[in-house]
């Protein structure tokens, strides 16, 4: 990890890896979409709408993964003062926010035919909504503080406190739901997932993971360039 503290070396790595990452993403997405839309069978209860799960669940997984990524990067930034760690955290946030939004929106689209309402306060959707707020708050902190160094430290604190809070929220909303909805807990496809449903889900999950990694690398590169740009502009202001 210390090797990549040098931005130039990291950028060279990103340049080398990027085409392969994109290729992998496209291939996995192609296979995943084929499996999801053509191969996977109808669900005996939900009919065709079960296919929404193949874009909803991977989005939710990535939403959580991106936040974990942010939290780990923030911890590394605070503890080890690794120069690229806070950029990695900053870069992950908009991506994570998009995945969270997709998880919420596709969740609603899945829920409407199933439960009859666009929104239910079940444990998953509620936790996802709070996660979305956590992302918005984190992104807002970066925009609210002018000095990047200061913004990085405060944002890191926000990310870590949010990370501690997230499992507590999930636990509390779960608990709240068992109090208020004892019977109607929704289980996707039953206690165990049928392989015909599991395979498309896993492939789409892998595809979304590849997409997330690719986008994250791209975003980190952008942040490195933006920081370099700012350094040059500040230096020019000094020269003048």
């Amino acid at each position, binding site marked *: 990890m210390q090797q990549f503290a040098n931005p130039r070396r990291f950028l060279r790595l990103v340049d080398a890896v990027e085409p392969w990452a994109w290729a992998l993403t496209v291939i996995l997405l192609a296979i995943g979409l084929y499996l999801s839309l053509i191969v996977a069978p109808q669900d005996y209860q939900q*009919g065709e709408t079960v296919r929404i799960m193949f874009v909803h669940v991977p*989005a939710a997984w990535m939403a959580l993964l991106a936040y974990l990524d942010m939290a780990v990067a923030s911890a590394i930034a605070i503890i080890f003062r690794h120069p690229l760690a806070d950029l990695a955290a900053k870069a992950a946030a908009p*991506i994570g926010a998009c995945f969270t939004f997709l998880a919420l929106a596709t969740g609603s*689209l*899945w829920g409407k035919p199933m439960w009859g309402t666009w929104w239910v306060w079940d444990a998953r959707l509620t936790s996802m909504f709070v996660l979305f707020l956590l992302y918005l708050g984190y992104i807002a902190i970066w925009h609210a503080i002018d000095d990047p160094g200061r913004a990085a430290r405060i944002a890191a604190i926000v990310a870590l406190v949010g990370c501690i809070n997230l499992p507590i929220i999930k636990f509390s909303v779960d608990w709240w739901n068992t109090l208020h909805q004892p019977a109607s807990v929704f289980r996707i496809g039953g206690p165990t997932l049928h392989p015909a449903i599991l395979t498309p889900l896993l492939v789409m999950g892998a595809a979304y993971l590849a997409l997330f990694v690719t*986008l994250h690398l*791209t975003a980190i590169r952008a942040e490195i*360039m933006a920081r370099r*740009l700012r350094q040059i502009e500040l230096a020019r202001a000094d020269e003048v």
Partner: protein
Amino acid sequence: MDLTAPHLGFVFAAYGLSLVVLAGLVLWLTHRNRTLARALRQLEAQRAPRRRAIGEAP
């Protein structure tokens, strides 16, 4: 896929929305990268002549 199934619109909406948002994200990030790279190239080109000039000064 059974094209006569009820609620098929929801499936298309979900996949369509996912496509739009993710494609938008990809486009925004790649556009940002290109803009920043161009700005950096311009600034570095402007600095290079000046640096040479400073180096040449006795």
